[in-house]
């Protein structure tokens, strides 16, 4: 379990990193926290000719809360989880981050790495989908802004980022004043990748649900749950609507079997977890998706 040989560069600026990406293209890989890439290198599942280590690019590491929440792609998961600005704007994020691996992994792992790696069981792609986030992708040719849906596009372990693109920033729009959220996942041990999980953000005008955004993970890819969302929109909050959303979630969820559980079990789990997440959201009355 030793990686194949590779060349290594450690740029100190975004421009330098982009030049290296332009030069090496598909032969290169960006090294962020390394929590996913290094195991893949060791298994020789990834064999980049060139590793571009962006840990020295300080300008990729920031959190700025001013209406839209802007997060630099190299922001460590620990910093993300502990940020007062993030918790204030979107309390669902620290809740989700607490479930990502263990402290040592979060100390190194980055938000950009988590999105670019796009593990179908990862928390953040689904949470950010539910929050209607966008990311900026930069290359030597310029910058584009991509919505989470378009970044993930039903893919697993890859995204629509181009070979020469660096994910630089995550942008999360401010939450509606009366939105609340719930986050539920089920893993066999705390810190493991989830068998299934749901991030739910709902907005009500007192008792009627006016907005519902549900992101699910643990299936074949991160996804929104449109049937569940439709079942909620316009409904009164409560057991009946939540049960309908749970059933809808099971219908939407791209469940799959592995050593940890059958697809049938996962479909059932997403139903249970959706109901629980919605109850949690309904019980959270803080507003601002608290």
């Amino acid at each position: 379990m030793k990686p194949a040989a590779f060349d290594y560069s450690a740029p100190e600026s975004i421009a330098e990193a982009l030049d290296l990406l332009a030069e090496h293209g598909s032969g290169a890989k960006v090294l962020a926290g390394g929590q996913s890439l290094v195991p893949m290198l060791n298994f020789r599942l990834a064999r980049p000719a060139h590793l571009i280590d962006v840990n020295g690019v300080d300008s990729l590491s920031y959190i700025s809360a001013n209406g839209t929440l802007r997060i630099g792609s190299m922001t460590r998961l620990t910093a993300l989880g502990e940020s007062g600005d993030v918790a204030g704007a979107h309390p669902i994020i620290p809740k989700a981050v607490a479930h990502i691996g263990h402290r040592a992994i979060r100390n190194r792992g980055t938000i950009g790495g988590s999105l670019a790696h796009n593990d179908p069981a990862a928390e953040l792609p689904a949470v950010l989908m539910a929050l209607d986030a966008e990311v900026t992708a930069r290359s030597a040719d310029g910058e584009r802004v991509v919505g989470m849906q378009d970044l993930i596009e039903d893919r697993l372990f890859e995204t629509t980022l181009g070979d020469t693109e660096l994910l630089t920033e995550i942008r999360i729009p401010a939450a509606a004043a009366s939105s609340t959220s719930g986050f539920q996942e089920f893993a066999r041990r705390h810190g493991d990748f989830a068998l299934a999980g749901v991030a739910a953000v709902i907005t009500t005008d007192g008792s009627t649900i006016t907005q519902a955004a549900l992101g699910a993970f643990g299936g074949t890819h991160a996804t929104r749950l449109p049937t569940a969302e439709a079942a909620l929109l316009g409904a009164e909050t409560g057991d009946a609507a939540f049960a309908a959303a749970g059933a809808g979630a099971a219908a939407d969820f791209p469940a799959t079997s592995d050593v940890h559980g059958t697809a049938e079990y996962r479909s059932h789990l997403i139903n249970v977890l959706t109901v629980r997440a919605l109850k949690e959201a309904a019980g959270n009355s803080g507003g601002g998706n608290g």
Partner: protein
Amino acid sequence: MTTTQETRWIGVSAPRREDAPLIRGRGRYIADIEPAGTVHMAILRSPYAHARINGIDTAAAEALDGVHCVLTAADLEGIGDFPTIWRLPGQKESNTPALAPGKARYVGEPVAAVVADSRYMAEDALDLLDVDYEILDHVVDVEAALADGAPVINEDLGDNTIIEYTFPGINALGVAGDIEGAFEEADEIVSGRFKVGRYSGVALETRGLVADWDDLRQTLTLHSGSQVASLLRTELAAALGIPETSVRILTPNIGGAFGNQWDRYPEDILVSLASMKLGRPVKWIEDRREALQATVHGREQLQEWQLAASSDGTVLGLKGRVLSDQGAHLHSVGIGPAWVTGAAAVNQYKIANYHCDVVGVATNKTPNSTFRGFGGPEAMFGIERMMDKTARRLGIDPAELRRRNMIQADEFPYFSPGGAVYDSGNYPAALAKALEAVEYDKVREEQQSLRDQGVYRGIGIASYIHVSGFGPSAILGILDYYTGGYEGSTVKIDPHGRATLYTGMIPMGQGTETTLAQVAADHLEIDIANVRVVWGDTDQTPYTGFGSAGSRSNVAAVAVIKAIEQIKAKAVRIGAGLLEADPDDVAYADGRISVKGAEEMRSLTLADVAQQAYWAHKIPEGDQPTLEATYVYDPANFTTACGTHVAVVDVDIDTGKIDWVKYVVVDDAGTIINPLLVEGQIHGALSNGLGGAMLEEFVYDEETGQLLSSTLMDYLVPSFTDLPDFEIHHLVTPSPHTEGGFKGMGEAGCFPAAPALANAVADALSHLGVEVDQTPVTPSRLWSLIDQAGG
């Protein structure tokens, strides 16, 4: 004069002397050993469950810069393999070859090895080896392997049945019980079919080896984490065709062994052979994927039991068939663990009529061999689930059913129809203590009221025996077990009166260094700081027939006691001369040699006598100079540790999640040498047992034969957040058959763990009639049982 407090060490919670260097980063593991000039081995392993190897093109690998040699099966001409130690009559032998000869039989089987300047280069070279595989049909399920037309794993053996061994249930009078009669007479016949999952030790430290051949001195030094270095030395020399006197095995710190390191492995031969070829040190460190694929697995059995009971709960007979999934090759102990399952399944109960067929079955999987518990936990799963099923069928409380059938404290020695003679114990007392500790009646009442609130609480009892302290060598002979059951110990008192103790035991986490020092200090009645323990070097330490195991300190301790008895007797003889007294009037006490009745006046320290023993100016006639003794102790009988565990859990019927409420342990391992270490061993073994009950499993894909659990993301080891708080209580029934009364205790914690958990879960879901008959009890499996039951 020393006080008694400083000279009595048995029963004291002495801190582990192993700990300071380990905790402070000065442990020395195989990975830390790298003699000058070391080169590194990597091993090409079969990616297929079953494939003919038509050829291996090594040219590109050999041409790679930094590569020193490539080994394939063709290079093993004249090299032997390791024999199976336990060769039951009728067991078809299929030793594990060092490199797959012509055919690979499981995913992970060694096919070729490369030695290069670095492990990185060696792995680059593996990529260049071109193996011409012809994929064959595979089979990874025991029943499928026994079916007509199944792919045959070892053609030489004809079919996949390695052995069918019958326990006829011989009673104390030497005759078989009347099993058919028992079933005819029964009011109820209860059946169970159990799948005991495949899992293993999965030590923190993977295996590793450094072989260093000195061609001028013709010596091979092998740094190895083996638990049984003497046997490895004997067998390795034979396999390599070199004199045993040329081989020295050095054992550094071990980061976990769990029985897996009792076995001899292909890599032992490969690194040694490569070092002999290259004339330089060769190092191999197993990576985690290799550890999961190629270190022996354990447990996996398919059991079918039938229990005959009368309506009052008396168990009249027990009949079973155990299919043991042995994997592709017989490893060091053959089908030994499955044999132990057959021998132990009657557990604590007086079951007059017993019959069990044990079938060893070959499959395209990693060899199933030595692993903590060695067939015992598997046996406990079957019988303890059967007791609960029977209790439910008869409407008798499961604790009461056990109580009614237990062997009583005055019925020892007890000749079990499984073949073992239980030395001692007090089973009903252990059960009673466990029930009291868990507040059984109260928990049962709460269970009722909680259920009305939608909380599904379950209580699971599991009692166990652990036959340990293997074993009288003569009995091992009768069992066709080709090694001895003894342990040797050499104790040397230096001229200053301090003791050095040489043992063949290896501290692998169980605290052997500390416990043996305690036994020596206690019997010499000196400060433990004055005892040094030397281990891990076959050039210095006594030959061990059986080697280190979690439950061997009891045998090794007696060897220490016996050697010290000889030392004390000699000290008394020398001391009597110096004190000008008759030896009969001189005694050894408190670390001093004194004239009886005149201890204050006419007394010498051990150091005074030792100094004289080395000066040797006045050695009594018939004695030799210096003060040392060796004793090789062959146990008179096995010892039988026992106890009862009670698990209390809540089951979330929506997700299949199991939450811990309480876990109570009552164990009886005879005299306790060190309560702190005993507690630690119970924690470790229980975690290991509950890991297999809930999380750990080697899963094979039926379609492809691939091992799916080949990373630690798929094979889940428990951490403390997954485990309950352990509440531990002890009973002490000293073994009457060993000096000191010690019994083995390093494994027992894992025996009742899985059935306690399974019984608790089934109890929680009794309203649905859910039976939990497969381990591990994963949330997915449990939910599907609940779902099928309409919950």
